């Protein structure tokens, strides 16, 4: 769904680091280095960030399109 607030196993807050990880990864940095930088050292916390699947983005599109009904499907 959306990133869990904390690491399941140890309870460290990880949610706050996701956006940094994502933006820095898209700039071409290696995820491992970013996580080291952010002080996410334990593998339990690292997997939370690395394997996160933001499926909320997929769901939200449907709600967005409800709002934004500009593209109507042309049946012809």
């Amino acid at each position, binding site marked *: 769904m959306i990133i869990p607030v904390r690491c399941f196993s140890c309870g460290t807050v990880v949610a706050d680091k996701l956006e940094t990880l994502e933006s820095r990864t898209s700039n071409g940095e290696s995820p491992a280095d970013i996580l080291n930088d952010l002080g996410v050292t334990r593998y339990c916390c690292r*997997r939370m960030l690395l394997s996160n699947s933001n499926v909320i983005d997929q769901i939200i599109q449907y709600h967005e399109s409800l709002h934004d009904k500009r593209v109507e499907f042309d049946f012809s």
Partner: protein
Amino acid sequence: MSSVPNENWAIIENMIKKEGIASHHLNSYNEFLDHGIQDIIDEVGGIDVETTGTPYRVSFGKIFIGEPRSVELDGSTSRILPLETRLRDLAYSAPIHLEMTVEENGIARETQKHHIGDIPIMIRSAKCETSKMAEKQMIEKGEDPLDPGGYFIVNGSERIIVGLEDLSPNKIIVEKDKVGGNIVHRSKIYSSIVGYRAKLELTLKADGAIMVKLPSSPVDLPIVTLIRALGIENDREIASLISNQNQVHNLLEITFEKAVLDRDTHCNVCKVCGLRILEKAKDQTQEEFDKENPDYENCGHDEVCGKLGDCSHKALMYIGNRVAHGMLDEFRIRKAESILDWGLLPHLGKERENRYDKAIFIGEAVCKLLELRMNWINQDDKDHYGNKIVKFAGPMIADLFRTAFRNLIRDMKYQLERTSHRKGSNIVGASIRPGIITDKLANAVATGNWGRGKVGVTQLLDRTNYLSLLSHLRRIQSPLSRTQPNFEARDLHSTHYGRICPSETPEGANCGLVKNIALSSVISVSSSFEDIIDKLTQIGIVPSRDISMEDRSRFCKIFVDGRLIGYTKDENKLVTSFRNMRRQGQIHSHASINLQKYPNKNASTRIHVSLSSGRVLRPLIVVSNGQPLVNHDVVSRTQNGELSWQDLIHMGVVDLLDANEEENALVAIDGTTEFSNEHTHVELFSSSILGAAASLIPYAEHNQSPRNTYQSAMSKQSLGFPTPNYNYNTTVREHLLVYPQNQLVKTRATSLLNIDKRPTGQNCVVAVMSYEGYNIEDAIVMNKSSVQRGLARSFFYRLYDAEAKQYLGGMKDNFEIPKSDENTRGYRGEKYYRLLESDGIIMHESVVSGGDVIIGRTSPPRFMEEYKAFDMTGPYRRDTSIAVRPSEFGVVDSVFMTQNEDGEKLYKIRVRDMRIPEIGDKFASRHGQKGIVGLLVNQEDMPYTESGIVPDIIINPHAFPSRMTVGQFIESIGGKAASFRGTPVDGSTFAGENADDLGNKLKEYGFESSGSEIMYDGKTGKKLKVEIFIGIVYYQKLHHMVADKMHARARGQVQMLTKQPTEGRARGGGLRFGEMERDCLIAYGASMVLKDRLLDESDKTNVNVCDHCGLLAYYDGQQRKYTCKIDGEDAQISSVTIAYAFKLLLQEMMSLNIAPRLLLEDKV
């Protein structure tokens, strides 16, 4: 373990990305809409209306399939999309229009298009609106862009036609069979055309005679008689149709004798040249004879010959006598002819002129049979995948449509002949009842009832998670009975390689009968017969009608789709040219050619060209002169999108081979092989031989094989994120994992199958150790704190729906809160309706539990007359409200209000329930290792590592030695390594990352390469004596949860008939005290416990028994007297305690005229 980094995956990837995961369904269905449906219409052609006045004909023209639409109650139509049909319980179907022309005396009058019915439209097929939409538009319309389609929607429910495995049609299959100690040789042909199939069976009996079993004949016919009936009268010609080998002819002798001895069909032939001899009848003049037999030429040898006439006619009569016994001569002949034209080998045509082809074909069937008899060839392998095809929606719907269309025609003909005084297009239009086709198709798809005893053809689409959907779309069923052993049919066959997944099959009754197609397999579509004949003629063949007698047995026979079309002298040249032309794109890439040669030089050489749809093909890289044609350059161009896999086929560097053609190929296992000139192909990608489910198992090659099978079955039960439009979904049961995670150890199929967008589990920190004994016997210990932080949290949705029906007489259902003061029958009590709003519907986000009414509804009373007749007070309305299932809880998630097809109000209400993992919930890794939660442990009590890591799950080490799921160990190390290096590990089967490299990665980060760590006991803080294997493993939560299963009962409902406790959780039933439990108590001598269970706490009853007659007596309430029907009022009556079931037995016996008497004695 050496991993071969194989880049060819890009080709498989391109193939599946381009075609879609359900392309076989879509192609099959599109093919049907494209021409299959027109073929069925053309086969019928038209209706001859036989009237008392001038007869006329309605001939059919082109067929048109419209767009999917809904027809409202007022007759208005509107375009619909799948989403709406799901919500409103409609069918996603389109109208079929057919051009019909009224012809009188062969002159066309007028042509008009008529609506003849509706056909269900496959989602994402060419006719489906969504197939033309861009991703964005689909989202706008509430559709899931990743939905592969390939299924139908009828009555709002998604139905899939599972692929049906079938024997290849039109193929001569020869086999040996043992019947009572004798070996019988058989030759079978399943001749089929669209929607119709006829089996022809030739048997070489123990006495040496070859008999044929015709579809509509009750008795077997001698084969010679059949060939004669087909118009070949010359015995020599008959023999040469079969073969020119002397040994074969010797075997035929008995068969011929059989036909000769048969007086009915006997006609004389010239012993010298084999020509049939005709002789004038006694009263016939030469002139009359010549006139009757204009083509007759005397061979000149007739001095040795006898007499008698037309043997083709006689043979026909022989058949007629058997199929239409006792009818008029003329009718018998007609019947026999129609059997030959319609029932015999229909794939060769249904006209008189096709009879010669049929004779040739039968001759070939006999030839193959006798070659088998001579042991020149081997019997055909029925489990060889070259002898099988898989039928998907196209042929299945065609079957159905054919019968439906014929029903419609019959009905139309009847209607038209009844109203024969009027004619013209309008009357034709009026005679059409579109419901015949619409209902037949919709009903069949909705129930899976295909007629002729075929049930279970369609199934409800499995949407447990995205993978289960994909796997369901790639499933194949065998028609073989699952109650019989069929050992060979269940076995994995070498021809399954690359076509059928070796791992993914259910356990138990369906094992090996239900299969799944491999990632690499391609299901063929049909290609043009005429084109191939042209191409073959170009290459050079001798047509079968022109072949000389000698060449017939020397040359190689060429079959195209089971039809003997000619001969060639140089079979190798023909096959090579064919393949070259195919690689150049001149021949359809799905067409296959197979050269069948036997070591025995007497056996005929055959070439089979197959064009049919439903063959399972697989792509292979072409090797030419010891050099694979796909090189690094080609692959990288495929990778960057410059080339598509289709381009590679057109370039001739990749071939699609069916199992038959593969028999001619020598396939190298991978690029590292030393190629010789013998090699024709090389495998494309090693792990693409697996199916959808098995290809998601990381390091599957390290597991014991059955574990992969278990996992393939289990992954379909795991919870995940099945669809992003779940808020508009009205699936009856659905699950959603709150925080799904991507796999840290993935396979190449993970992203290809979009599992990374629709994950089905979470990466858990898993330690392998024991913990207070709470993980023995496959239980798992879970970290309670992890659970509280959201691990494995899921939602369960259940849909309730209700519609307001209209009844006869204007009565209808009302949505309202049933009122207590209106004497509503079945009123539940005020508290159950407390959550309803004034419209009778529950409020969104209300918290509900078992028994609460969520849709208030009252229905008109049944049996109105009953009340009038007895002058009772009433009638009262009935409460037909919908309540939450007992033992379920939740929050009302969404309320849909809409109208169904009949314009009636339809409510669908979805209740969600958050499921936090608890003791008894089922979990599984990806290696067939399943277990239930045995204990939830607080974080401070869990063991911890030096760095403070606490496992989420602790599994028992005993899970490994006997099961040998080494893949899980590698995954565990890989998961840990992946989290350190920041990128997922590729664990693809046969092509994954090296396990040692992963261990080294751990070393780099200061861990042991073995994956073990020092751990401390959380309770005492003491170091554990051994190192613990700990790592990250992807775990799936399976949909078996205790919340859905736990059940207990003290008192409760009883069955009406037997007064025994009900069965099953849903009815609050009791737990059965069965036979074996009974045995235990008997053995133990605990008779009072036994009585307590079986009588006192079950169906204890007191009955009155007459002491004298021993039959049941009763208490007459009005006269306050015990009465026996036999012995009257003065009889001595005793009260006896028995089981109600026993009382029932006594009365049932009495209804059978048996008098069961109970002989009573006083208690001692």
